[in-house]
């Protein structure tokens, strides 16, 4: 509270913040409301990074200013971004869970001379809207397309796709369908269901009737996935041997305790599992669990935020704390490092993150908890969505 007041008082005009002793980073995310857990993960990732790497780059102190945007609301997103840039004098904008919110901010960047580091929003096109956008999360194309290859390898011939009827769902469906057809597979039916669906039994009936060997599904992580996976079990699809395939949003770690046994054996492809076996990840998970408080709440947006901070630190280092968006973005193009999720790099052209995508299976650990067990790796995946859009 005091900090915010002080910074408000100290807020000076935009251009005079160059060479400032404190570099401010404005983070916009869903910190309350239905997606509060994802915002909490943003903060955990950022806190973990700063706990491990200090809150200073060179001589400059880094200060994070959080702003809450509970649901997709571009008008409010723009108002918050403008306030952060003009009033708080932030040199970097980061966070953003929903695509429209990020889209609303892109037109401001050039005039504000501020880079935007996207820690989640997963529609391919965002990076094309401004040269100052860098993304450290993933796109639905990136995480869904490898699943089609998995399906093919496992001898699945006929697939039915079931996705939530909104942007990411449609992206996911397109990515899977395009790739699976290219691999010579057959899509027997494509179902898009409203986001508000609570009872999935009729959908499962459709799946059953379609005669598919497997169902590819996408729903936003959170309460609905629980109903979906349970329904898949209760309606006897699991028993009938119809394999459930999905991007990792469906089995995010914070939902796994609730999903329990019903998710066992589910196959997902994703860019990050908390169980990933590497020293970098061990350090990260330890710090992030400490930051979030309740270890069960840790989930994938935290790693996007962690790597986002890594990119921002690099930008600050390259510019010496001076406000220069072009220089900052140029400094991270082509940058490669070992992230908790594995080796990653920022594509010099698209400014999107190139990373490994892992095939995981939900498994039960010795202590009775559930986790995503990585069983195969697709190395150095770019974003096929950008190519598909062209």
């Amino acid at each position, binding site marked *: 509270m005091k900090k915010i007041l002080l910074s408000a008082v100290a807020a000076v005009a935009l251009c005079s913040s160059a060479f400032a002793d404190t570099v401010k980073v404005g983070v916009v995310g869903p910190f*309350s409301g239905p997606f509060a857990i994802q915002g909490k993960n943003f903060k955990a990732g950022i806190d973990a990074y700063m706990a491990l790497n200090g809150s200073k780059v060179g001589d400059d102190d880094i200060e994070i200013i959080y702003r809450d945007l509970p649901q997709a609301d571009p008008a409010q997103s723009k108002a918050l971004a403008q306030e952060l840039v003009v009033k708080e004098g932030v040199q970097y904008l980061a966070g953003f869970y929903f695509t*429209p919110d990020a889209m*609303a901010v892109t037109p401001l960047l050039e005039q504000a001379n501020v880079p935007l580091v996207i820690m989640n929003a997963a529609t391919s096109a965002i990076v094309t809207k401004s040269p100052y956008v860098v993304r450290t999360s993933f796109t639905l194309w990136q995480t869904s397309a490898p699943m089609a290859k998995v399906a093919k390898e496992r001898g699945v011939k006929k697939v039915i796709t079931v996705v939530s009827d*909104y942007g990411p769902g449609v992206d996911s469906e397109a990515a899977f369908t395009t790739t699976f057809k290219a691999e010579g597979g057959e899509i027997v039916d494509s179902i898009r269901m409203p986001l508000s669906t609570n009872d999935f039994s009729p959908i499962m009936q459709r799946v059953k009737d379609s005669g598919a060997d497997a169902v590819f599904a996408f729903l936003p992580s959170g309460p609905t996935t629980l109903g979906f996976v349970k329904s898949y079990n209760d309606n006897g699809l699991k028993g009938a041997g119809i394999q459930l395939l999905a991007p990792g949003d469906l089995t995010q770690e914070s939902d796994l305790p609730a999903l329990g046994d019903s998710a066992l054996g589910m196959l997902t492809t994703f860019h990050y599992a908390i169980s990933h076996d590497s020293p970098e990840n061990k350090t990260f998970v330890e710090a992030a669990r400490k930051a979030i408080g309740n270890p069960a709440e840790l989930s994938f947006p935290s790693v996007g935020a962690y790597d986002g901070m890594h990119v921002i630190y690099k930008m600050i280092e390259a510019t010496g704390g001076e406000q220069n968006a072009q220089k900052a973005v140029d400094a991270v193009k082509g940058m490669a490092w070992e992230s908790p999720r594995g080796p990653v790099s920022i594509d010099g052209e698209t400014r999107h993150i190139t990373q490994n995508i892992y095939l995981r299976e939900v498994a039960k650990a010795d202590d009775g908890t559930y986790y995503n067990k990585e069983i195969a790796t697709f190395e150095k995946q770019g974003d096929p969505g950008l190519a598909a859009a062209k």
Partner: protein
Amino acid sequence: MAIQRAIAAEGKVDAGPNWLLRDLMGLAAVLAVAGIGYLLFPNNLALLTRITAIALLVLSLDLVTGYCGIATLGHAALFGSGAYAAGIAAVHFDITDPFAMAAVGAVGGAAAGLLAGAIMLRGRGLAQLVLSIAIVYLFHETANKASNWTGGSDGLAGISPDPVFGIFGFDLWGRTAYVFGIAILAVVFVLLRLLVRSPFGMLCRGIREDPVRVSAMGASVNGTLLRMYAISGAVAGLGGALNAISTQVVGLDSLSFTTSAEALVMLVVGGTGSLFGALVGTLTFMWFEDFVSAINPFHWLTIIGALLIAVVLFAPNGLYGTATQLLHRVWNKR
């Protein structure tokens, strides 16, 4: 009852010869607050612009809820229609003059108002409330489905309005958008003040008090309400268009139940049945929300909830309604 009395009192004063003075004072108050906002928060103009756009939505909601007694939880359907109309005009038809976009928004909102009104008037009371919810969900789903036109859930991006009069561009600091918005709000406010005092406005209030009696007098209840709905739609549509122009993105949230419910909450906080109440409610609620959510982005919702409960307990007629009541009481004691 108390609200009715308060309005009756206001009505009496309105009927007096000094109504022009009161209107001018009201306009002056709006412009003064707008000016103070500009001077005190020059770095927060995007928020102030957003408040202005939502104020138009709440004003338009007041026209049907406060003046006609139609409770609705779906008024964002009108607001969003205006926003999408303006946005689609800019993106798909190259109509990028801000005034033209605002006009398109108003027309879009009015058309949506006619459609929504025609459905809404089939029900009464609780049923009407449910109809309004159904309407806003249908609008929302339609926009989601027509993603070729609306961008679906990714939002309609790429709206770039021309500078106002070819001089004042819409920039980072948002000065143009703010002044543009306040100008629209001021004009709308004056027109609405005239409207609610006109015989037509009086007829609407009469319908709220007793529709049977009004129809016995030979006036068409549904015809009048439908016209009011269209006017309300135009006002909400202007708000939506302002949102589209200043944000340059239109999202599905502008057609959502949440936005509708928030607008209703703001109206009741300020006080129904008075244009000032609508403005006071919007300003108070949105400013308070911005303030507490900046202090604690994680747990501010509880405080908002407490504010709403406090308003019901201590200002049952809304902030403006209760304040004027108190003033009247003090005045009469003298």
